[in-house]
């Protein structure tokens, strides 16, 4: 059987940033009509390869061939002409411009984007300014823009990392459609289940080298993890067994939320979190989850309702008031947390200096100790420690969590805390959250990766249309049940389940 030439053939590509060798020798072939996964731990060089393939970066050495012909891109326009369009890991939209202006800016034909906006069911006003839109929507706009260029090869760098399941499903549908039309997709993700379900082949990078390529099949997760992490793999026990002691029944809740109404979407939420408890929050996109977290963090002023810590209300219009009461936020978009030009150390130590009392002399030793501890716990890659913007996406994400390990907290509000973090470290973060809970702290965690609920949480609430529509112990929260509740399809036939001590009034079915 005569093989058609590969659509993309990457040979021995290398790229260094100063002393950091991001890619040492990357090899990759993508056939026509294939969804190809590109996998690797944080900092393995995936995004670097995407930037090279999309013409945003030039490789130091190595060759790239498209449909059998060697190419050298000197700009993104070249790559687009060769039929390659990327969706980068971080939103590539200018924040203070409207969506329409952003399309114009990148030479995207608005008429060509339209059908894709419809296809992806995006209900967006193109005149809206980008910084007013939620992250998940921005990712989808990036995708629609890439699709509008009608590429032969679509590069998706952690496209689904910030997406709730309804959006992710639409992305998968489009990817399959792309494949059915004989086109190809290079798909980067840290969610191995997705990879197994949708990808035909997978290439694994480790420390800048391609170490394995294989057809994905049932059970290839273990092989992938092994290739990705090398000797580190032994430390990952995939299904997380251990679980701290469950929240003490009858203990007084640490955080109580009463009929909170805030922002445009949050219509009235009550919940409580006990000391030592990890409460999960799940929802489809746009159900008020952003507003809930921002309101609890003191960034968004509630229209009505109360937030209480240890029984006394939290007041004020600035996050510092919540932080003083022990509530801290890991925001959904890490661009709202990272100081891109500052060092890892300054990023992590930031909360130490927020209050005016600490404006004075810095205690070098104390700072270093706290920072080193967080670096160690989260295995932050210190190779490019001078500026956070030089870190890989996953390592930037770690900064947003590590900051509060340094700053201290009682209740951590984390919004998709493991977004873009590799499997090895992910489990480390799960363990860390459990351990923090075991030490008596509380966590309120939104997750778009539903399987995390059973791994990390004690209990989960489901948000729909600005209200809580369901609540269940994490042990019962399989994905099917959660999805059912997220779509608000009425009471699922669960049989009677035990309600925890802090359960809310179940919502009356109307």
């Amino acid at each position, binding site marked *: 059987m005569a093989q058609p030439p590969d659509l993309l053939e990457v040979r021995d590509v290398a790229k260094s940033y100063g002393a950091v060798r991001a890619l040492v020798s990357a090899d990759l072939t993508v056939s026509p009509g294939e969804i190809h996964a590109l996998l690797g731990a944080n*900092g393995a060089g995936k995004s670097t390869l995407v*930037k090279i393939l*999309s013409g*945003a*970066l030039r490789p130091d050495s190595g060759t790239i061939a498209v449909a059998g012909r060697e190419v050298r891109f000197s*700009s*993104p326009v070249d790559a*687009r002409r060769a039929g390659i369009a*990327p*969706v*980068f890991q971080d939103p*590539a939209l*200018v924040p203070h411009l409207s969506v329409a202006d952003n399309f114009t*800016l*990148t030479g*995207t034909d608005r008429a060509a984007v339209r059908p894709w906006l419809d296809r992806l069911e995006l209900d967006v006003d193109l005149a809206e300014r980008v910084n007013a839109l939620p992250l998940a929507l921005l990712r989808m706009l*990036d995708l629609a*823009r890439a699709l509008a*260029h009608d*590429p032969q090869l679509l590069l998706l760098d952690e496209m689904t990392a910030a997406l709730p399941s309804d959006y992710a499903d639409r992305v998968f549908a489009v990817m399959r459609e792309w494949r059915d039309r004989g086109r190809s997709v290079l798909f980067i993700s840290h969610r191995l289940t997705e990879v197994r379900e949708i990808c035909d082949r997978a290439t694994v990078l480790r*420390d800048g080298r391609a170490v394995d390529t294989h057809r994905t099949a049932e059970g290839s997760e273990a092989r992938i993890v092994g290739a990705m992490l090398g000797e580190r793999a032994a430390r990952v026990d995939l299904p997380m067994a251990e679980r701290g002691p469950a929240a003490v029944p009858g203990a007084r809740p640490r955080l109580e939320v009463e009929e909170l109404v805030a922002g445009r979407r949050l219509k009235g939420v009550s919940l409580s979190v006990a000391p030592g408890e990890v409460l999960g929050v799940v929802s489809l996109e746009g159900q008020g989850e952003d507003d809930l977290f921002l309101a609890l*963090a003191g*960034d968004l002023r509630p229209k009505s309702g109360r937030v209480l810590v240890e029984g006394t209300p939290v007041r004020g219009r*600035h*996050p*510092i008031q919540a*932080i003083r009461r022990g509530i801290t*936020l890991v*925001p959904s978009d890490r661009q*709202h*947390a*990272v*100081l*891109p*030009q*500052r060092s890892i150390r*300054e990023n992590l*130590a*930031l*909360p*130490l*200096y*927020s*209050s*005016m009392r*600490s*404006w*004075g*002399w*810095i205690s070098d030793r104390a700072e270093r100790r706290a920072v080193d501890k967080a*670096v160690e716990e989260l*295995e*932050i*890659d*210190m*190779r490019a*420690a001078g500026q956070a*913007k030089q870190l890989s996406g996953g390592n930037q994400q770690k900064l947003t969590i590590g*900051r509060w390990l340094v*700053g201290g907290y009682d209740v951590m509000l984390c919004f998709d805390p493991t977004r873009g973090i590799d499997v090895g470290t992910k489990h480390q973060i799960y363990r860390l959250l459990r351990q923090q809970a075991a030490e008596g702290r509380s966590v309120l965690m939104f997750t778009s990766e539903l399987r995390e609920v059973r791994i990390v949480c004690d209990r989960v609430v489901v948000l729909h249309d600005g209200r809580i529509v369901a609540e269940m112990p994490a042990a019962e929260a399989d994905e099917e049940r959660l999805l059912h509740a997220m779509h608000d399809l009425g009471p699922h036939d669960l049989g009677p389940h035990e309600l925890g001590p802090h359960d809310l009034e179940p919502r009356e079915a109307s």
Partner: protein
Amino acid sequence: MTVLDAPRQQGSPLRRIPAAMLALLGVLLALILANGLVDTGFFSLGQLRNTLLIAAPLALFAGAQTLCMLTGGIDLSVTMTATAVAYVVGSRAASGDSAFTAIALGFLVALVIGLVNGLAIGVFGVNPLIMTLGMAAIITGVLTVGSQSFLGGATRMPQIVLDLGRGTFLGPLPWNLLVWAVLGVGLVLLLRRTGLGRLVYAVGDNRRAARLAGVQVWRVETAVYVIAALLAAVAGILVGGRSGAVDLQLTASYLLPSVAAAVIGGTSILGGAGGYGGTVLGALILTVLDTMLTRLAVDESLRQLVAGAILLALAWVYVSSTRRGATRRRSSA
């Protein structure tokens, strides 16, 4: 990977001096040598003293500017603040107040100006460019009117101000150099070693992230504009002492160079990156350059042209050295 590599980040202090700084130092040395060739008298003690006399106030103005620029702002009222302070000191002293009282009143005026700037920018969100430009205009207006009434009459600088402004200690070293050195070291330490310094960078780098981490941005900004005004006050006293008399144009020629010195020194006009070390080099480069062009009897317009060209060249160097990140974000499919 990971923690094992952490020690590599440390290393000898010399190796940590960024390449850009070394380049600036090179430019400065080259200019000094060129100056020596143009005018062999340049290395004379008297000439050295003159150069430093001019450089010190500029470096102070530029320090104020650096601080504001690091938060993503700018202070275009620094020179008028300095002039106002010189007016107040001069006229209070002339009407019989003690030097101490006169100087204290001068600082009080600067404090008020800094507070108004800072609160307007930090609390009410007025654009820094517009706010401080407006403030400069207001001060000019008040001084124009005031010089015919409440600030009218003779201005006379107290002796201590004259000494600080033009006197020397230890041969060619002017007092104003000492003042600058103390404040300069203070500013470097403030930026590098204090909590406020961290916040200055954080606010300029990512305002939203700073807020979400609990930083009350308005307080940081208010502090920054107050410190800037106080630095300007010192500069005003030094310049006033050097010239001995006060008029509205006293410090006008320092405004553009104060911004230029910071930019040349590598402080980002968008905030979040840079520092005072670079600014000092920038101020020295500008001063030496100006001395040279003056010596060569180049006329004013050509001098500005040359200064502008150098500024653009350096800006280009900075932009192209950071461009990779910028285009990556802006381009995209």
